[in-house]
């Protein structure tokens, strides 16, 4: 019947129009990020019963749907987070690697130059020119450490800025998502059929952006309102209520900023290490990798300062004074206090400091000292191992880690805790403190001369110097060693001091023995070691060793000792030299950086795969759309032809009845 033919034609026309509109929409949005292609679904209209059979009545567009696979979309989200995290980490570690390789190299060079200059003084200790070169090199060395420390500070600042920026972005996205959720809810409420496709697309786009910054999980309810959770399940958008992310200063270290979730009534702290995405990468880099490298460089600065200051103090300078510190003392009050960080949550009023006693034992880890019901326990934050230090109030506590914990004033409340960073600030505060080139203590204070009449294979050597000036005053000292009776294997020795008083014989047990001189009750000013079997021949002919004042402008013994520290194992339990220590730190950063690169490449590949899978369903293919356009154009033309035919039929009928 012609009437229904019109209807059919028009329905076809309208359907084709909607199809073309949708295709046009797809083509226009081919480059829109996150766009899911839409398709108009046509359905046949119900057939009309005209008595004997059903005649079809055309078509209608039932729905314009997004071609959206939520599973491949979620897969893309997960991979996007991973990619965000590994890319960010790769970038940061690459920067750190560059800094360590180049600035670290500069420090190695400065150390080398310093020791070169030191060897010059060891050869010619009275030359003031050579000495000032040494002082110049110490200046360069300390400023290199300070510069590297400044680099680390800058990186930390920029990461903190990045974290703040990301937090702001996340908060903005959260607000947007809440608004869209509201719109979707309202659009559903108006009982319009169909999906608000473009709103859904916009929401998905925002979530994709969010997934780069953190891990995202979404749950959609029956009204189409989406609840968004980040990290390990922290709700960011609860339906139409947005929460925001805030960054606040860390406690006790203000530079270790913390993430907080801000709700309408309360705020909650979030553990940054579980957030995923760029946020987790930044926090991991700042709190783990950067801090480790910084701690290693600080420890190296501390080791160099302590070793050289120590050796200086054992010798005499050009003016026969005890050698003063070349670098800032590692136990100044400022440094000691800076190693203890008290969180504001502590209710007691204890102020404490940390004194370094043995640089070779100091590790790079952070420690926590806690007052557990009146007893201090110290926990290594990296390994978790803890040790009991003793009851509070004892003043000074030694630890097996080369440092002492000292209560300066006040008392802690129960459960108060303190963060201990033994190496804190060592590089930042490293300064050259010696300015007079005559102050380099090249000369030793005393030396041992064996008598020409000694016949046995025994030796006495100076192994430690406590007070060179006092040692000079205690000179001369003579040590006579004798095996008595001869061949018995039992040795004894006597000391003759500078007043000519000879002590009673004391026992020497081979193969070696360390003696403090002068002997008790006087305060020891230095230490010697008897080694070997100095038997002597008879009670009248013991082995004799004369210890005398050795100071002289041409004495370079202490300068040689200082030069030898270049090849001595000092850090890490006495196993690594300075350059080895630095090389190890640089290698560790290099290997972290190169594995981060591999991880980033893998993450990129995985993301590309997930993206491709998603695009398979949702992506716009221009060729396909072009073919569709032709298809719908033809359909339109055909449908309009139907109308034209219907018109002709009607005209024919009209002509017939005229």
């Amino acid at each position: 019947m012609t009437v229904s033919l019109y209807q059919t034609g028009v329905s076809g026309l309208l359907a084709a129009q909607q199809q073309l509109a949708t295709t046009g929409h797809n083509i226009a949005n081919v480059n829109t990020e996150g766009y899911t292609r839409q398709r108009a679904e046509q359905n046949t209209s119900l057939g009309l019963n005209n008595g004997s059979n059903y005649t079809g009545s055309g078509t209608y567009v039932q729905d314009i749907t997004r071609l959206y696979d939520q599973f491949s979309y979620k897969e893309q989200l997960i991979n996007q987070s991973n990619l965000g995290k590994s890319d960010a980490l790769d970038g940061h570690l690459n920067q750190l690697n560059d800094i360590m390789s180049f600035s670290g190299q500069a420090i190695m060079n400065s150390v080398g130059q310093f020791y070169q200059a030191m060897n010059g003084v060891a050869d010619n200790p009275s030359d003031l020119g050579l000495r000032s070169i040494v002082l110049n090199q110490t200046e360069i060395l300390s400023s290199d450490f300070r510069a590297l420390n400044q680099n680390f500070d800058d990186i930390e600042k920029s990461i903190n800025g990045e974290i703040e920026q990301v937090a702001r972005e996340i908060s903005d996205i959260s607000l947007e998502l809440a608004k869209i959720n509201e719109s979707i809810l309202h659009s559903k409420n108006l009982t319009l059929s169909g999906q608000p496709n473009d709103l859904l697309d916009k929401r998905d786009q925002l979530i994709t952006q969010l997934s780069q910054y953190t891990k995202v999980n979404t749950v959609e309810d029956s009204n189409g309102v989406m609840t968004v959770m980040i990290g390990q399940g922290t709700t960011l958008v609860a339906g139409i209520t947005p929460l925001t992310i805030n960054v606040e200063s860390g406690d006790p270290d203000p530079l270790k900023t913390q993430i907080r979730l801000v709700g309408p009534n309360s705020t909650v702290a979030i553990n940054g290490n579980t957030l995923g995405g760029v946020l987790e990468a930044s926090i991991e880099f700042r709190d783990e990798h950067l801090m480790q490298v910084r701690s290693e460089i600080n420890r190296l600065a501390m080791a160099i300062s302590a070793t050289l200051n120590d050796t200086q103090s054992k010798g005499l300078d050009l003016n026969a004074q005890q050698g003063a510190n070349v670098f800032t003392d590692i136990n100044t009050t400022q440094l000691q206090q800076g190693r203890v960080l008290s969180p504001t949550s502590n209710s007691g009023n204890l102020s404490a400091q940390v004194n370094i006693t043995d640089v070779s034992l100091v590790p790079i880890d952070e420690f926590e000292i806690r007052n557990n019901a009146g007893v201090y326990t110290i926990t290594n934050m990296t390994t978790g191992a803890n040790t009991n230090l003793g009851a509070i109030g004892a003043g000074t506590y030694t630890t097996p880690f080369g440092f002492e914990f000292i209560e300066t004033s006040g008392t802690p409340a129960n459960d108060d805790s303190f963060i201990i960073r033994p190496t804190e600030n060592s590089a930042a505060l490293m300064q050259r403190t010696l300015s007079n080139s005559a102050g380099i203590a090249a000369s030793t204070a005393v030396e041992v001369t064996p008598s020409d009449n000694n016949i046995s294979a025994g030796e006495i050597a100076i192994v430690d110097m406590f007070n060179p000036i006092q040692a000079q005053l205690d000179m001369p000292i003579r040590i006579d060693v004798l095996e008595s009776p001869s061949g018995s294997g039992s040795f004894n020795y006597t000391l003759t001091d500078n007043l000519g008083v000879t002590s009673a014989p004391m026992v020497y047990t081979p193969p070696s023995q360390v003696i403090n001189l002068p002997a008790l009750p006087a305060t020891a000013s230095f230490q010697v070691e008897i080694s070997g079997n100095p038997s002597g021949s008879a009670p009248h002919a013991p082995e004799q060793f004369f210890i005398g004042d050795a100071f002289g402008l041409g004495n370079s013994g202490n300068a040689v000792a200082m030069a030898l520290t270049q090849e001595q194992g000092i850090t890490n339990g006495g196993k690594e030299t300075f350059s080895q220590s630095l090389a190890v730190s640089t290698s560790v950063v290099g290997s972290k950086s190169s594995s981060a690169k591999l991880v980033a490449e893998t993450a990129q590949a995985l993301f590309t795969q997930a993206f491709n899978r998603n695009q398979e369903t949702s992506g716009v293919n221009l060729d396909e759309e072009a073919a569709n356009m032709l298809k719908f154009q033809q359909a339109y033309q055909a449908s309009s032809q139907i109308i034209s035919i219907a018109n002709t039929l009607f005209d024919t009928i009209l002509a017939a009845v005229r």
Partner: protein
Amino acid sequence: MRVSTAQFYFQNAQQLSNLQTDVNDQVKYLASGKRVLTAKDDAVSYGTLAGYKDALTNIEKYQRNLNQAENRNSLQEVSFASTEDVMQQLKQLFIQSNNGTLSDIDLKALAKLAENSQSELLDIANTRDETGSYIFSGFQVDVQPFSLQPDGSAIYHGDNGVRELQIAKNVSVATNQTGDNAFEKVANHKGDFSTNYNANTSEISVNRAVIVDRGAYDMTTNPPDYNFNFTSTTDLTVTDNNGAVVFNTSTYTAGQTVAFNGVEVQISGNPLPGDDFDLTPEQNISIFETIKKAIDWMNIGSNPVDPIQHSIEYNDILKQLGEGLNHMNARRVDAGIRLNLVDSQESNHLDAELHLTSGRSNIEDLDFAKAVATFEQSQVSLQAAQQSFVQIKNLSLFNYL
């Protein structure tokens, strides 16, 4: 599998970007000539590389020290060679002066020549190096080691400090010799005692007086000086400083070894009654002391008061001059030994340096052939990707509508 337009462009852009990064990296390596620029390039080998560089720096340090050690020891060797010459001359002069036909004036002239040799020797002992420090003063390098007193003796003002330089990981070499060791500790040719003849009519002289057993040598019970007194040709009594008798024999024969208190003495010649001399402990005699004695001997002239004593003293001094010459020679040999050590360490370091440099180069340096090939390859890949992209982008149905 359906490919969306966005996916197509995304993938292509990614691949182009990756290939460009590759090319860029290759350029970086080629330009620097190094395969390992930062620790990231080869984290595993970086540690070894750092170790090689460290060892090479150390070798440089040792070579610098070796240089200095060589200079200083060479200077000493040359100085001692000169002193050997001076001592030779002195000995000749002294031998010449033992000629009975020489007059007082001749002897005085010879003594004058000897004095010149003495100041020559003193000059050498007071040598300064290129920085103006005295090389024989031990640690007191700004103090002149020897000064000549008006009476012709020389006093040592330095100390006994020996400087050392590190020339290998566990090897040090001394860079100076002390003045007291070099010039004052010349061995006494007699042994451990010198003689002082109180009365000598028979021309006996002490050949050897040595402490053979230090254990038995008790200086507290029987302190020196030891006095030898011949009451007859066979009767000898030795007393210590307290007057106690330490040795007594009535059957003394010429050339017999007299042993007491761990000391052995040998006297040459046949003693006559009344001969009396003291033994004073003196293990080392300063070379300047010997030269002073020689000059004084020559200045006595051709008519000495006691010709027998004069002739015995001549023998003593001549032997001691010989000891002095030997000592100078030995010191020169000392310097030579150190120079040998310096030489052998130097060649060790050269060998090590060769091996370390090649090790370092194996890790760090770029294999240019391989690198250029890789670079070409990256370049070609990039070009291919770019060109294929251009081709494919033109394929669109819209071009044909």
